[in-house]
């Protein structure tokens, strides 16, 4: 075996990670200048699933947004949908549109935060100082004092005025209810929202894309993308072109490949038809069976770990001494298999031609994940403009219903980082069981009972180390390409 001749692998402990949401540690086995195995550790446990047991079902609307300050609305929408399933109530058209707008505002803001604050600053690291592209990357993307943060923060804050109008505030709103939203919109507020969206569109077109949203989403092949990247408009090429050039120079399309099996629960229903389709993609489409989801506890610090359980039957009892445990994170699997979720998964499942081709060429990788996120920003903002126009003031935003004493329901939603599900059982008017499987639970899961590593663990295998690196920059890129949210992961 080659490992035997290469000497004993060394261990590397990477963490604390910053510019990810929450706490993260990665344990690496290194040999021959590359990662040969990775273990992803979620080091914080709070216990939301335990807290919710025994409470009034509606209390979930107060508790679950506080699972996560960056995916707060996604958590609320998942809870509202789980409650709605138990109550057998569905929102009126305005409620559906307003929920889409609030969720889209969070998801788009999160994509922007990820790109400008979390992901791009790694290209301004000293380790790249000899690269020809470094001075421009440093000026634009350096953490805290780069020019991009100064542009993006005000644009993000103004865009989130949509939350002030539609949800009272962000994060942690109670506007999202099983029957719709609590905040009806008047005709003058439609005008205001369109103005906010126009202002944000202008930021995107001038700073991020250097082109119209429509031109960007029309890119339908790798060749079209390459041609677009190399056209430098006189007013400035924008930050996406900047990223694509760095990605080319560093080969980010060959870094961080995971399982290439992608899942999306489907996003943003209008008249119950989603803007982005639900499904599974693995070299081809197949339907999603939520009944095939099960959480494996074999490598989690959890008790009651005999066999993987569907979330309706899930148990959360932490055990810091559990044998083989190395993370507070459970390992969700779909029909026993590891999957990747997120914007790339959503767009490949939905069938965007550019993303389908890029995934066909190089699978899930650092470049494709970041590109899909930004493409999705453009697709979503175009849809948001249409949703605002479709709102009908003076018509209802919230249907009313009754909570039965007993029932069961699940709420599935696409958060910025991917597929989020809540599974709720109500008994005698109280929450009997509440289980949450978050996007990063999928992506950053530990090994399962068959020893199969989770998506990030697979993506890190093969990552190169530069000489003397104790904080390998390739590992940083791969980890952040998933835009992890660790507070959601374990909750």
């Amino acid at each position: 075996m080659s490992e035997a001749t290469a000497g004993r692998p060394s261990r590397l402990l990477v963490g604390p990670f910053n510019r990810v949401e929450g706490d993260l540690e990665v344990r690496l086995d290194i040999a021959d200048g590359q990662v040969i195995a990775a273990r992803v550790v979620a080091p914080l446990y709070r216990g939301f699933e335990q807290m919710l047991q025994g409470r009034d079902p509606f209390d979930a609307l107060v508790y679950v947004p506080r699972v996560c300050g960056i995916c707060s609305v996604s958590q609320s929408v998942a809870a509202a949908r789980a409650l709605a399933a138990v109550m057998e109530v569905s929102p009126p058209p305005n409620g559906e549109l307003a929920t889409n707008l609030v969720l889209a505002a969070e998801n788009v803001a999160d994509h922007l935060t990820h790109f400008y604050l979390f992901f791009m600053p790694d290209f301004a690291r000293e380790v790249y100082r000899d690269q020809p592209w470094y001075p421009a990357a440093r000026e634009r993307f350096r953490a805290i004092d780069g020019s991009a943060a100064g542009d993006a923060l005000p644009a993000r804050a103004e865009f989130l005025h949509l939350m002030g109008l539609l949800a009272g505030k962000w994060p942690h709103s109670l506007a999202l209810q099983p029957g719709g939203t609590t905040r009806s919109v008047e005709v003058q507020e439609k005008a205001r929202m369109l103005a906010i969206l126009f202002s944000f569109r202008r930021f995107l077109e001038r700073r991020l894309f250097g082109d119209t949203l429509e031109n960007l989403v029309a890119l339908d092949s790798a060749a079209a993308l390459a041609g677009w990247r190399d056209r430098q408009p006189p007013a400035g090429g924008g930050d996406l072109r900047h990223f694509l050039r760095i990605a080319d120079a560093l080969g980010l399309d060959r870094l961080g490949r995971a399982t290439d099996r992608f899942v999306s629960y489907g996003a943003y229903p209008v008249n119950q038809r989603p803007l982005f389709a639900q499904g599974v993609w693995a070299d081809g489409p197949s339907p999603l069976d939520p009944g095939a989801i099960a959480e494996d506890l074999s490598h989690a610090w959890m008790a009651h770990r005999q066999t993987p359980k569907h979330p309706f039957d899930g148990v959360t009892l932490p055990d810091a001494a559990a044998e083989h445990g190395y993370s507070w994170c459970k390992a969700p699997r779909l029909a026993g298999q590891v999957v990747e979720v997120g914007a790339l998964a959503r767009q490949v499942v939905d069938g965007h031609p550019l993303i389908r081709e890029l995934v066909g060429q190089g699978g899930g990788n650092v470049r494709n994940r970041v590109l899909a996120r930004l493409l999705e920003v453009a697709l979503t903002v175009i849809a948001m403009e249409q949703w605002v126009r479709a709102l009908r003031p003076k018509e209802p935003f919230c249907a009313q219903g009754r909570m039965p004493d007993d029932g069961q329901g699940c709420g599935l939603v696409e958060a910025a980082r991917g597929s989020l599900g809540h599974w709720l059982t109500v008994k005698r008017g109280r929450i009997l069981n509440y289980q949450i499987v978050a996007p990063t639970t999928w992506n950053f899961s530990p090994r399962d009972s068959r020893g199969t590593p989770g998506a990030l663990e697979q993506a890190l295998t093969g990552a190169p180390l530069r000489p003397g690196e104790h904080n390998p920059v390739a590992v940083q890129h791969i980890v952040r390409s998933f835009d992890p949210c660790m507070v959601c992961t374990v909750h």
Partner: protein
Amino acid sequence: MTDRQAPVNLLWLQSGGCGGCSMSLLCAEGPDLLTALHSAGIRLLWHPSLSEAGDRDLLDLLQSILDGDTRLDLLCLEGAVVQGPNGSGLFHRMAGSDRPMRDWIKDLAGRAGQVIAVGSCAAYGGITAGGGNPAEACGLQFDGDEAGGLLGAGFRGRGGQPVVNIAGCPTHPNWVIETLVQVALGDLGADQVDELGRPRSYADHLVHHGCPRNEYYEFKASAEKPSDLGCMMEHLGCLGTQAHADCNTRLWNGEGSCLRGGYACINCTAPRFEEPGHCFSQTPKVAGIPIGLPTDMPKAWFVALASLSKAATPARLRENATLDHIRVSPGNKARNKGGGNGGGR
């Protein structure tokens, strides 16, 4: 920034929370967060969402603070202190180290000029301490409404002050920025915080102040279900008349607040708000009267005034209160009553 003065060094750590106070802080406007910090000479030693450095560079920074080589002026903690399981602190181990986060926080607090709890979790335990408190969470200097917490009631920072509790779930960006700037300017004296450690700049107000539903409140025209326009105190659990904060005079995300968003205030700046003892969205009552009355209001007066104002409720408010949009507009006396309103045309 005043260039001649030494920068004020700020370290921001997170533990048992959701990161939502940081996310809210990034919504700061007029000016944005980075400009506001710069204006007060505050230098970010490290913030988990903003800084470039991580991994060993961060651990080295923390060590140099503990060794006294780097001066720590402001220590902000976001999220509760996690003590479980069984007091071990292992529910939150600092990544890259073998130590519970709790121990890092305690040691660093001993080096800080001023310790600041950002959000109700860091202040009192907050939502992380709810539902039986499986994580054994507490605040920095409070456990719920009892003084103590991780650091103990007697703790004082190098500057001589106890922990400042910028309570809220989440915090308004300007509550945080203004408190940081006040500390940096030396303007946050002991008389500037209330008995729960909250800055009086916002805690001397009630959420009720500036509530757009005040007219419904005055006439006891109540909302009955989500999305109704009426006052949410009588039926939907609103605690705005008791909650210490200026949410309806200092708005959120441009033009918002919980009440403006159509849902009840849950008193998130208070210790133990996470366990109200009843469903958050329903008002508990005895003999039809809400148990929680407005702060400082004698019960007999409240009951008398409520029944009087209920008898005087204009039809406009009675009707609009249970609708999701205004159906009955305010009357125009000059037009409706011709010359009989004393004004004349």
